[in-house]
């Protein structure tokens, strides 16, 4: 099956006062239609920047310096700015973290959604509102017509995030990048939205990249998982592989520190230290200073081992499956 989204060697850098920072470093992954890929990492690991880089939404002083982003086989990076804009929202859409901030507070929900419809499809305002209402129905919003006339502040956080997801769905895109869309919501609402997203991926065949720091969410939702650390993908595979038999010590640490994935009654282990600053990364493996398995060889760049369930590590926890 052809991948809906195929990212190859994506690299995004920021020219900061402290020096050049590579926030996304040679990142590659692919997502097939109808599948959900969890992109997991701590704050500052570059996972959100990866999401924005896919859509080409990096502002100065940032710059996407290398790589390909293939959506249905079209490389977004080679498109002219206006052609790229036409892909956004139509072929590849995005949902943001904070539903309180993603909707314009002074415009009606319906007007905002209708604008998103009409920018790609030449339809009447009325038809655009109808499409918007249908999209709200799809994400399970009751009394959709009424909600369209509301202003964002009149809706709850969960409702607003559903509106954002509905907006992303308006053009039936091949790919949706969801940047921590449930982090700001109550746990009960979070569950509802996750179930909704799972259903949508199955029904519409949309490929979803779920950017999150929450391994628990991803383990129940995602089909595949990529773990990011300091701008690189350090491990990738199916959800069963990565959660069930992690190969990278960092992934192991992440899993161990999630309460729900941990046997009860035992103290919760933590990864010592914190995310490195990208300005002056240590040479070799960036996880080295925090890694229990680190040896001298880790001062050199780690190799990528395995093809089915690859890990970027000198000392993976299990050898690559044959």
């Amino acid at each position, binding site marked *: 099956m052809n991948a809906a989204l195929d990212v190859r060697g994506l690299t995004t850098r920021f020219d900061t006062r402290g020096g050049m920072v590579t926030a996304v470093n040679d990142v590659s992954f692919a997502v097939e239609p109808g599948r959900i890929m969890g992109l997991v990492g701590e704050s*500052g690991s570059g996972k959100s*920047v990866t999401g*924005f880089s896919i859509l080409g939404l990096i502002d100065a002083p940032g710059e996407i310096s290398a790589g390909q982003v293939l959506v249905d086989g079209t490389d977004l990076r080679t498109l002219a700015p206006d052609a790229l804009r036409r892909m956004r929202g139509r072929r590849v859409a995005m949902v943001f*973290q904070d539903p309180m901030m993603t909707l314009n507070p002074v415009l009606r929900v319906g007007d905002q959604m209708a604008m998103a419809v009409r920018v790609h499809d030449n339809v009447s305002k009325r038809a655009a509102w109808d499409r918007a209402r249908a999209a709200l129905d799809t994400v399970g919003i009751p009394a959709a017509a009424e909600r369209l006339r509301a202003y964002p502040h009149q809706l709850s956080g969960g409702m607003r995030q559903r509106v954002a997801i509905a907006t992303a769905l308006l053009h039936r895109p091949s790919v949706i990048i969801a940047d921590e869309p449930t982090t700001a919501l109550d746990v009960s609402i979070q569950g509802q939205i996750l179930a909704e997203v799972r259903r949508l991926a199955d029904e519409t065949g949309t490929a979803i990249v779920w950017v999150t720091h929450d391994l628990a969410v991803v383990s129940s939702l995602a089909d595949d998982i990529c773990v990011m650390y300091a701008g690189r993908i350090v491990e990738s595979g199916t959800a069963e592989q990565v959660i069930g038999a992690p190969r990278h010590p960092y992934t192991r640490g992440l899993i161990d520190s999630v309460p729900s994935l941990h046997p009860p009654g035992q103290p919760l282990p933590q990864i010592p230290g*914190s995310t490195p600053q990208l300005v002056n990364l240590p040479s070799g493996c960036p996880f080295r200073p925090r890694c229990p398995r680190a040896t001298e060889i880790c001062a050199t760049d780690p190799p990528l081992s395995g093809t089915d369930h690859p890990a970027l590590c000198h000392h993976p926890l299990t050898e690559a499956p044959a």
Partner: protein
Amino acid sequence: MPDTLTPGGTASATPSAAPTRTRASRLRDFWSDFGRSPVALVSLAVIAVLAFVSFGAPWVTPQDPYDMANLDWMDAFLRPGTVGSGGYTHWLGTDNAGRDMLSAIFYGLRTSFVIGLSAGALALMVGITVGLTAAYFGGRTEALLMRIVDLQLSMPAILLALVLVAMLGQGVAQIILALVVAQYAYFARTTHGTATVERGKDYIEAARSTPLPTWRVLLRHLLPNVLPPLIVVATVQVAAAIALEATLSFLGVGLPLTEPSLGSLISNGFKYIHTDRTWLSIYPGLFLMVTVVAINLVGDRVRHVLDPRNQR
């Protein structure tokens, strides 16, 4: 840091939490940030030079232009660069009374600085007092005080100053008083705004629950937090006060003609704009403009540096 670009910005955890910064290091950071703008540095230098020549006017100028005994009618309307009867060059020419324009400008500038700084400082003190009182006591005191402040803010300062000067009469002290009344409201509003935000925080509650006297809580705890935005307001208001004094004097309701003032100098030069004696109005205006613009540019930079959104 790249993470500030992510929407919603989950605060990135830096490995070493920033050490508690001392006052000295904060000041050093402020200056290093401030100095990154060449425009602001030049402006600061210009202000320093202007302040030096104006406060040193009696020593750096060849004549006291407001001492009638020094003036010679024979020297009237000399063009810039001409040597007058005093044997020295009138670099910016002389006016209708034979007054050396450069000297007169320095003396006028001194008045500008004195009025601007004292009006600014007094308005700052009055404003802080009103704003802090309102924020600290709350309730009816707050409602009444801030009502008056808001009402005043909705009136343009120039109008208020105009009426006050008309009531108080002409003179340096009168102008300063009028400017203070017209301007304190800006400080009061800023103080009150920041202080009400701080008031809600726990540390003020904690300080209040100790037996410290009220004024100590106000001065030691609230004031330091209110100061940064006030510094910005102060620069703007000093510049505005200087411009207002010049305007009032130009309109003939500010300083009497016997007092040196850039406004009166320009007003005097204004009588001759249909002749070629344009130096009479252009040069004092240039000095006034440079002073006010320089102060505003410094204020702009201070605002930029103190704005938390611009701190990296």
